[in-house]
């Protein structure tokens, strides 16, 4: 644990990628093998199931700190991270533990089986025996994933430096389901392993947003254009008469989408497709809001399956006849995919090809992008026809050219303190639009990004002077400021007071030139629903 918390401390003390990679490489060179496996697991967001719920954790930490529970809650709200709050609030200690990372994690796994009394005793004992950083790391292992500015890509790069194994090969080895407590470092990293192969996906290739003019990409004839579907990016694997569905977050989601079981006898074995899971109510593509009813569910009821079925829109073929074809040009992979879909009896299964659109000029592409919303898409994907399927986010061959966001002018109505650095500032805002009679502002969205630090400071100081009422951390303010709010999608919703749900709302700009009378109405918003 000393080594690992020292690693976290070092990673925490720099914003420079080279120094982070250096620290990680050093760790992978000197740490015991079992610890390395856990470090890899933790930095790729695999952690043991939480052994204690957070309510109990808060109570037990509060007890040790000898403060009232409400004060812990307020502190947590301001610190913004439970493990960090616990580490800060418990009396300081200069102790340090000799137990290894592996030992701690084995104990945490065992902890789940113990009684609450035993759990509490274990936590109290360990919290007091660790110094600040170890305590933070220990609590983090219990509460959740590490977000310390180390991407999986960065970790893989360091691992590659330490082992001399190619980065892409390591990325592939680290995909999928492996149990850090059961696998050895040799099995995970060093050995070729046939058994795991069956369910293993390929690392996703991710596109960057197009920021320059499309014309700068060269000839339109060298590019494939297709709609950018607004669903869940997924890889679907059919091998050995088994189906595996992976989401982009490397989560195995096969059970959530029983519709796809029908692929097994239709799609040939040895096929891996890249595509988008889309909602398909009433026989046409729905909104992301429809899909949301499916995402959270582990088991899907019959009624829900009927109401919101899903389909898979496929756009790429990564494995064909059991062979990895990622190196072949996109043009060829598309041809094989087209043929594959054509040859099987796809009419019986929820599988559709994402059409490749033919254009003779960039202007035509731009026009198609303008009507993306009619197609229920987010814009256009541009893929170079002679490009291989790369690993991770790489610039050059794939671009997403999203349609401009929808916007509306809304009035600031409520504000809440931000987290961490923003904990002294009111930076989380609620916005309202006018009702039909322009009498009342109806809440329609919350947003907390899009302003500069200087603007946030100004709005914050205004809020502090114009508070109407306080509700815990939330303040209502005098309606006065108008902001232009941008969002990606919009759909009707019964759960929202306004009757409308917007996707990814954020502040586009502060309209200091507008008065609250100039803000839009709920009716204006509803008119944007496709």
């Amino acid at each position, binding site marked *: 644990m000393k080594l690992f918390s020292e690693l976290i401390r070092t990673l*925490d*003390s*720099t*914003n*420079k990628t080279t120094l982070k990679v250096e620290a990680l490489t050093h760790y992978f060179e000197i740490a015991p093998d079992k610890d390395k496996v856990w470090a890899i697991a933790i930095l790729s967001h695999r952690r043991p199931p939480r052994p204690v719920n957070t309510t109990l954790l808060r109570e037990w930490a509060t007890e040790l*700190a000898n*403060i*009232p529970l*409400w*004060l812990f809650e*307020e*502190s947590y709200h*301001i*610190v*913004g*991270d439970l493990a*960090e*709050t616990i580490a*800060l*609030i418990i009396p*300081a200690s200069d102790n340090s533990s000799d137990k290894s990372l592996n030992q701690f994690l084995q104990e945490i796994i065992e902890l789940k089986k113990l009684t609450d009394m035993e759990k509490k005793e274990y936590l109290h004992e360990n919290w007091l025996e660790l110094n600040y950083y170890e305590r933070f790391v220990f609590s983090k292992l219990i509460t959740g994933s590490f977000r310390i*500015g180390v991407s999986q890509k960065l970790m893989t790069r360091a691992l590659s430096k330490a082992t001399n194994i190619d980065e892409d090969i390591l990325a592939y080895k680290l995909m999928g389901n492996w149990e850090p407590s059961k696998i050895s470092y040799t099995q995970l990293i060093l050995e070729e392993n046939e058994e795991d192969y069956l369910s293993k996906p390929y690392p996703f290739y991710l596109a960057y947003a197009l920021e320059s003019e499309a014309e700068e990409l060269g000839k339109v004839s060298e590019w494939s254009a297709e709609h950018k579907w607004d669903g869940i990016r997924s890889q679907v694997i059919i091998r050995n008469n088994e189906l595996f569905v992976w989401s982009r977050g490397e989560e195995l989601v096969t059970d959530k989408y029983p519709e796809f079981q029908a692929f097994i006898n239709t799609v040939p074995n040895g096929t891996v497709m890249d595509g988008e899971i889309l909602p398909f109510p009433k026989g046409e593509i729905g909104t992301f809001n429809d899909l949301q009813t499916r995402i959270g569910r582990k088991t899907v009821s019959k009624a829900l399956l009927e109401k919101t079925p899903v389909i898979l829109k496929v756009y790429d073929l990564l494995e064909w006849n059991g062979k990895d074809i990622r190196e072949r040009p996109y043009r060829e992979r598309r041809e094989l995919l087209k043929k594959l879909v054509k040859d099987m009896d796809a009419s019986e299964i929820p599988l559709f090809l994402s059409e490749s659109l033919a254009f003779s000029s960039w202007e035509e592409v731009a026009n198609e992008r303008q009507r993306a919303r009619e197609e229920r898409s987010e814009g256009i994907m541009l893929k170079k026809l002679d490009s291989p399927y790369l690993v991770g986010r790489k610039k050059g061959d794939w671009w997403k050219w999203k349609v401009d966001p929808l916007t509306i002018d809304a009035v600031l109505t409520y504000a809440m303190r931000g*987290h*961490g*650095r*923003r*904990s*002294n500032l009111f930076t989380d805002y609620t916005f309202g639009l006018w009702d039909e009679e322009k009498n009342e502002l109806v809440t329609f969205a919350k947003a907390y990004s899009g302003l500069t*630090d200087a603007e946030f*400071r100004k709005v914050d100081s205004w809020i*502090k002077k114009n508070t109407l009422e306080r509700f815990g951390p939330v303040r209502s303010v005098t309606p006065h400021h108008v902001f232009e709010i941008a969002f990606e999608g919009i759909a009707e919703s019964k759960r929202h007071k306004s009757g409308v749900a917007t996707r990814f709302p954020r502040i586009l700009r502060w309209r200091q030139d507008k008065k609250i009378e100039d803000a839009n109405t709920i009716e204006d918003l509803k008119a944007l629903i496709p």
Partner: protein
Amino acid sequence: MNTPLLVFNEKGIYCEKAKVYLDPWKPVDHAIISHGHADHSRWGHKKYITHHSNVPIIKHRLGEIIVTGKEWNETFTINGVKFSLHPAGHIIGSSQIRVEYKGEVWVFTGDYKMEDDGVAVPYESVKCHSFITECTFGLPAFKWVPQEQVMTDVNNWWQQNREDGRTSVLFGYSLGKAQRLLKYLDPSIGKIYTHGAIENMTEVLRPQLSMPETIRITRDTKKEELKGSMVLAPPSAQGTPWIRKMVPFVTASASGWMTFRGARRRRAIDKGFVLSDHCDWQGLLQAIEGTGCEKVICTHGYTEIFSRFLREKGYDARTEETQYEGEIGELEAKSEIEKDLEIVKKTPESL
């Protein structure tokens, strides 16, 4: 019941009996000033009273003003109200202001800390009935480690950066924090350079405090000579073209806010040293207990949380809105200079 000895109005903390304001944020006739930071000593008052060691500081900041310097514990009477200044330990010349009338005693802390930093005259506990306190860091998450330990870390960090061929850029307020850091930097490691704003203030304070030698960074400073050195800069210098001269450099901030990992990460600073000129949680509680007061008024910081905690402990505690900012400038990269400019801009309309 008469009006309280001190009230909070739109201009500041007011003593009606004496017609005097304490740290007013709008122009007034008579102001008693706790210390030289911009949010406590504003421009535009007709007469200033402050501790004599603060006089050169506010004169440097505010220009030609009419100011009287007082000694610690020197009682001066205005309209029958007794005033005296007592060390607050925050920065050089920082005072608590004691106000007494007919046996009733109030103390206004301004900003203060409990640790003796060897720079400011250490905090002195003053008995009172009502205690007006800041609580910038009034949360149990804030726990300071001794200065000696922090400064050892700072010097080790500098040494390591020097060995790696990098310049160390350390951010801190140009008044107070910069001189405190400077005093304990180890000049045997290398040369210490300063941003102009810090150098100007340091020159003002040299007669009062012995500090290692510094070199002002000017247009003529060569990039090569900076390599491996220490550069003290105000928080506002981060991300400006000025800092490019230090490449390759590593940045650090010394502030109480560095307690939070998020505070450092979001400002994209490499290293955070937890070093504050304010009280931590225990410091605040200890100070309040030391005064033997019954009433506590919290002026800035986590006021609502802190006063609620005090009420549960049996104090008559409440919050008053003021325009004091605590250590926010070290968090938000907003310099005192910028703050001064804002105040000057605001003044004509409020006059």
